[in-house]
């Protein structure tokens, strides 16, 4: 019955999970950091050379990198804001029971449950139909109008953004709904006695109570936007007008065989993610923690 036995048992139980995570997660990340400091490439002859920060220096001097970085940040910020607003709206709409709620709920959740790689083709087909299609002239005119108003490639950017929002707000909505349901309803009833203004109640009661959920939703929304590689790829059918960091890295590594620069490139995402994670955990910590 010893505590020592409990400790041994705990590590034994954790072992399978930790072994898999270390070999398939920690090791690759270490490898990636190391590789980003070398010129590793299957195309190179001779041994791989250690080049220090050369890959990063070259990135910093590359205007294409800064363009990709800007697009990534703008994309993440825009989609994240809209997803949060729409998701919160959805959660509030669905918070009270009404007839057919279960059906509406399923419909709302479908975009997230559906494989993105195929639903994205559905979007591509809707937004950029091939020439001989029935409505391609109509969509072509839309594309032309948008591109001439906002600059070339705006339509492509817009379709990627729309898809990300469509898929993400479904998730954020369901997630925040669960958060609202976890709040004791009495709190809302007290609040209704205290203040007549729904707007004030929303900001002073609902939002603070939802804070941990909002924080995690924001982070998940951010990572999916930052990491969105496949969808950008598909929605523009490989003709990437606005590359994001992910597509850039994919191109460099898989098609160009330049593992060193590609690793450096995808690691430039890490500072963003770590900052976001740090802020998240600050918000996440409830003021009074129940003892475990």
């Amino acid at each position, binding site marked *: 019955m010893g505590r020592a036995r409990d400790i041994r048992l705990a590590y034994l139980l954790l072992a399978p999970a930790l072994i898999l995570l270390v070999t398939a*997660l920690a090791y690759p990340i270490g*490898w990636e950091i190391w590789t980003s400091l070398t010129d590793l490439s299957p195309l190179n002859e001779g041994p791989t050379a250690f080049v220090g920060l050369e890959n990063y220096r070259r990135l910093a001097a590359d205007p294409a990198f800064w363009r990709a970085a800007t697009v990534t940040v703008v994309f993440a910020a825009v989609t994240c804001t809209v997803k949060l607003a729409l998701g919160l709206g959805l959660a509030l709409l669905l918070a009270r029971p009404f007839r057919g709620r279960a059906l509406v709920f399923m419909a709302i959740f479908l975009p997230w449950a559906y*494989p993105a790689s195929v639903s994205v083709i559905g979007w591509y087909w809707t937004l950029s139909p091939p020439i001989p299609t*029935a409505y391609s*002239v109509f969509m072509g005119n839309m594309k032309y109008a948008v591109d001439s108003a906002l600059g070339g490639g705006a339509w492509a950017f817009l379709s990627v953004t729309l898809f990300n929002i469509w898929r993400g707000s479904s998730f954020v909505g369901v997630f925040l709904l669960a958060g609202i349901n976890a709040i004791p309803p009495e709190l809302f009833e007290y609040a209704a006695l205290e203040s007549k203004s729904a707007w004030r109640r929303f900001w002073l009661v609902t939002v603070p109570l939802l804070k941990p959920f909002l924080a995690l939703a924001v982070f998940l929304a951010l*990572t999916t936007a930052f990491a969105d590689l496949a969808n950008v790829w598909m929605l523009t*059918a490989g003709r990437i007008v606005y590359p994001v960091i992910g597509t850039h890295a994919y191109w460099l590594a898989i098609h160009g065989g330049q593992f060193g620069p590609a690793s450096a490139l995808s690691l430039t995402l890490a500072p963003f*993610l770590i900052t976001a994670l740090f802020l998240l955990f600050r918000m996440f910590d409830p003021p009074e923690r129940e003892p475990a």
Partner: protein
Amino acid sequence: MAGRAGSGAGMVEGSRWHKWVFFHVPLMVFVVGTLFPFYWMLVTAFRPDGELYRPWRAVNNTPFWTTQPTLEHAIYLFKQTMFATWLWNTMFIALLSTLISLFCGLLAGYALARLRFPLAGGLGTSIFVTYLVPPTLLFIPLANIIRDFRLGDTPWSLILTYPTFLIPFCTWLLMGYFKTIPKELEECARIDGATRVRAMIQIIFPIATPGILSAGIFAFTLSWNEFIYALVFLSSPQQKTVPVGVVSELIRGDVFFWGPLMAGALLGSIPVALIYSFFVEHYVAGLTGAVKG
């Protein structure tokens, strides 16, 4: 949208007029917006080629429905492509990686929820953080490792990498679930002479069945839908999974086989999407349990 708060967080009080403006209309907009792309896929999947490719202003053009639904695209899918093989591959890979992740997640979740040991908090947090590492960071080194171990183009390349994002989630979900089970149940069993491992397997795991089920369904769907790893690690057509197979074999160069593409997208995903929708409440409960942790 928050405009008409009643007593709850939901806003469905007030006059008829208010109800329409602040509830029914936004709700309809949401539902139409989320479902339209699916509807469009559905129509495309059953539309004959002659109708797919004809001018917008043609006589009798019916853009939003079809007058002659056809199964030719679905038949093409099964006869001319390896769709059936892809379905089988996806099923096999998803099932195995789900089982591995559930096994690891169950044990780790129990340890984190019930046992007191040094580093418990740190390990718990770091497992959670790994869930948040995006595949964009990982696919390059993993591709290299897969090549070194000669696992490229085999189902094992995916069965062994999918758990990297499945285990953290399963662990957190099950940990939250275990915490809701009263400790007394286990203590009673141990007073009666059962060892901790026995109490865990015979008392706690059966009670946690709903949690295990939802973790399993979630893991299964995530592996079914995964795209990037499958795209990078698999190359021959007979090894592919449904998402990658449909995309890479039905888009050849600049030619899109729209009908079969949409048919494949629908046939390959509807079952999973439906299962998911039925279990969504469990899944969400697990997620929020993890947040409240």
